[in-house]
């Protein structure tokens, strides 16, 4: 089957809210998913990602906009004519059907011959590691197994597009990590264009080719995980994708890609955003905690005190006070002797190329 792309062209959906009046669940959402690409819609609950996904699936009718599968307008096509594979958050396994019949469902609807169905179902169950589970019922399966059945049921029909609605949120943390890897491997192997919804930024970064961050019904930034992490377009994205320190400063001088900012009582060099900066302008700096280096002693310009320390095994999180501001810092645990006690005086240094000026102008 030919791999196709998905275009979402200005999708909007309004709801009547009991308190807030009419609100947009999705507002002029535009996406261009390339053939075979794994795109994730990432955002906090209520940002419109699920609504967008359900409109792409055909479960909801948009108030405006179009959905195109491989250039074909499917906006008015009901879900059962779109040839999609949808994995629900609660899996939505048919409780009255066995694992085999659950997976066979879409093939039976397509009136395939019994032996062809048996072969396809057997193959796909083997693919998701559930060979031998054919006669079980969903109530007898663990969460992870139910998830695999839901996945098998979605891919056995060879859908044009695979859609996931927070598929891992009902699993425990370890299983979540394992399943997301399996989903990613399977998607690569089958090369099915995939749109995935999650509120978990780590999950999004682990599985996606590209991520679209949504906020209040709109896509606020689109890009690879590295783009979003290192070059967040807004404070919202910076805060939602990863953790960060936000430091107020003032532009001193601009030289090409690099700017000098007065901050924390000293001068910090930072990467410039896309827009023009003028000397004297107030800006916000973004520094990720892992880019905050802590050096013992007082041999640097930025002196700080350790306020608290959280031991997490592989890494240690510190909060330090530096020029009246609190900064978060993360250090990998190099050994018992490497720990810095609370109250210790340290020096702070920012890793080269790790400080970014927030693109959003200060309000």
């Amino acid at each position, binding site marked *: 089957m030919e791999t196709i792309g998905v275009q979402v062209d200005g999708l909007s959906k309004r709801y009547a809210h009991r308190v807030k009046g009419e609100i947009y669940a999705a507002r002029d959402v535009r996406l261009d998913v390339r053939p075979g690409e794994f795109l994730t819609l990432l955002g906090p609950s209520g940002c419109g990602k699920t609504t967008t996904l359900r409109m792409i699936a055909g479960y909801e009718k948009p108030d405006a906009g179009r959905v195109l599968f491989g250039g074909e307008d499917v906006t008015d096509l009901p879900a059962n004519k779109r040839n999609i594979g949808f994995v*629900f*958050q609660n899996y939505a396994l048919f*409780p009255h059907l*066995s694992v085999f019949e659950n997976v066979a469902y*879409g093939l039976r609807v*397509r009136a395939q011959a019994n032996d062809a169905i048996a072969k396809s179902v057997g193959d796909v169950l083997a693919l998701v590691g559930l060979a031998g589970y054919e006669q079980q019922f969903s109530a007898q399966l663990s969460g992870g197994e139910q998830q695999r059945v839901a996945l098998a049921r979605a891919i056995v029909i060879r859908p044009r597009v695979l859609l996931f609605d927070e598929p891992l949120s009902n699993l425990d943390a370890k299983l979540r990590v394992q399943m997301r890897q399996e989903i990613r491997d399977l998607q690569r192997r089958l090369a099915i264009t995939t749109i995935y919804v999650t509120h978990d930024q780590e999950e999004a970064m682990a599985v996606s080719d590209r991520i679209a961050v949504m906020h209040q019904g709109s896509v606020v930034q689109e890009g690879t995980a590295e783009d979003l992490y290192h070059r967040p377009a807004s404070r919202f994205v910076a805060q939602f994708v990863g953790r960060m320190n936000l430091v107020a400063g003032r532009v001193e001088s601009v030289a090409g890609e690099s700017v000098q900012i007065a901050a924390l009582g000293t001068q910090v060099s930072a990467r410039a955003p896309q827009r023009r900066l003028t000397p004297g302008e107030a800006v916000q700096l973004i520094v990720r905690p892992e880019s905050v280096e802590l050096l013992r002693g007082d041999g640097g310009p930025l002196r700080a005190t350790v306020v608290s320390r959280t031991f997490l095994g592989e890494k240690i999180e510190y909060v330090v006070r530096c020029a009246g501001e609190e900064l978060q810092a993360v250090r990998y645990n190099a050994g018992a002797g490497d720990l810095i006690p609370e109250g210790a005086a340290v020096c702070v240094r920012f890793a080269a190329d790790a400080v970014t000026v927030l693109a959003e102008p200060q309000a």
Partner: protein
Amino acid sequence: MKGARNDPAVAAAVFVLWALLALFVIYPLAMLFARVLTDQGGFTTAGLATLLTDRHQIRAFFNSLLLALMVGTAGTVLGFLFAFTAARGRLPRWLLTIIDAAVLLPLVSPPFTTAIAMIFSFGPRGLITYDLLGLKGVTVYGLASTFSSEVLTFFPIAYLTLRPLLAAIDSNVEGMAFSLGASRWRVFRTVTLPLTIPGLANAFLLLFAASLADFATPLILAGNQFPVLPTQAYLQITGLFDLRGGAILSLALLLPALAVFLLQRYWVSRRYYVTITGKGAGHTPFDSISPTVRAVLLAACAAIALVVVYFYLLLLYASLVVALGADHAFTLRHYRVIFTDGWKAIGDTLIIAGLAMPLGGVYGILLGYLVTKKAFAGRRAMELVAMINYALPGTIVGIAYLIAFNEAPLELTGTALIIVACYVFRYGPTGIRATVALLQQIDKSLEEASQGLGAGSGATFRRVTLPLIMPAFFAGLGVVFIRSMTAISATIFLVSIGWTLITVRILENITELSLGPAAAFSVLVVAIVFAVIALIGWALRRFRAPGAMPMTSLLGG
């Protein structure tokens, strides 16, 4: 949801259902009102005025209310006792099964069974009053016996309402209160009981309505000293041939019945704190009752269950001896009588129940499905209208049918059809409610998943929705059949020379004082009903795949 406009099959089904509802629910009721409010072609309230000034009838009205109030209160207490013991007593499985069976017996019995057993036990020649205590000249008839008999008959309704509610209370909530330092009694008083209050109100109203509508028990036990409305209406029609008078009396029942129905449906049922999902809550993290309390509760339940079991054993015994209280020699002659003289009643009842059962079952899921899943104008109204005959006391429905279908062009009196129609529209609503409840439990993602896999709405209904609501279909079948075997209040007005019913024959036997055949008939009905329940249970297990929702408490209606 798909509208009726773009789906001709839905439009056709809606049209047919409305036509049937108009014919068998709205029309008879309208005719009843017309008969009461017109006289020789003119509008009149004279009939109502007579009712309001007749002291005897006013007494019957207040007697009915008093009895319903007492039965509602006592039955709710008893039902709660059983429900609480079953839900919190940590009883072994076998004991629960026994309690369930003992409690369900009265619900599936013909209407006179406890009444007959009361006479056998406490009558002038009663086993307890005469043989055991040696009392003479005792009179069993009156408020006390009617009350006790109705409580024993109807308290299982409260049990079935309250048990799932108590089981669904999140046990962590109680455990939390306990861990905050509350005593067990305090937890019960401040957490468990308040969470159950809407259920208690609901149970009370259901019992109130059941007692208000009960015709059989007062007919046998209330006697002359304690007239109540349903029996008065019946006597007015069959004794005095005063159809209009009976209609007026039955309408006096309408007001309290309607008030209770609306209160139960639109007020109490919306005030539940606890959602009954059918999924059992986790086990209580602490012993919510102390061993002593548990023993007391168990003893109380056992005592009441024993009374029920005693009554039924007595009935069985009475059917096997020449004359209970006089000649205790073993005989099968009563069974010979019912299988010869009574054979027509048995055959007729089985034919009518056999016809009403599939019709009522299909009617239930069809209407339940349409009003839950399809958008069409007036679907709320349809659901409400469908509930009318179910909610009204049988006496009203029976008299309304009698008036409506007595003359051309709809002359149905004397046919089996009128009885079948009465049962379908009176008991089919149980299937409607079960269907609606099940459909509301089915997550919409199941149907969406089917749709996403390429199934159209027809295939989705056939392959996903229908199998999941099969339990409701069987529940509907079961209730319609059981009630067709045991009901009397409506159909007593509809039997004829051509078609009669076992329950009516039992009544005739009692009035002729041939209690032996009456007992034999009752035993037969209980046996048939239990066989059918077993059959339905088997079908439910067969058609209910693992993981599908359990269907309990379906006989409560």
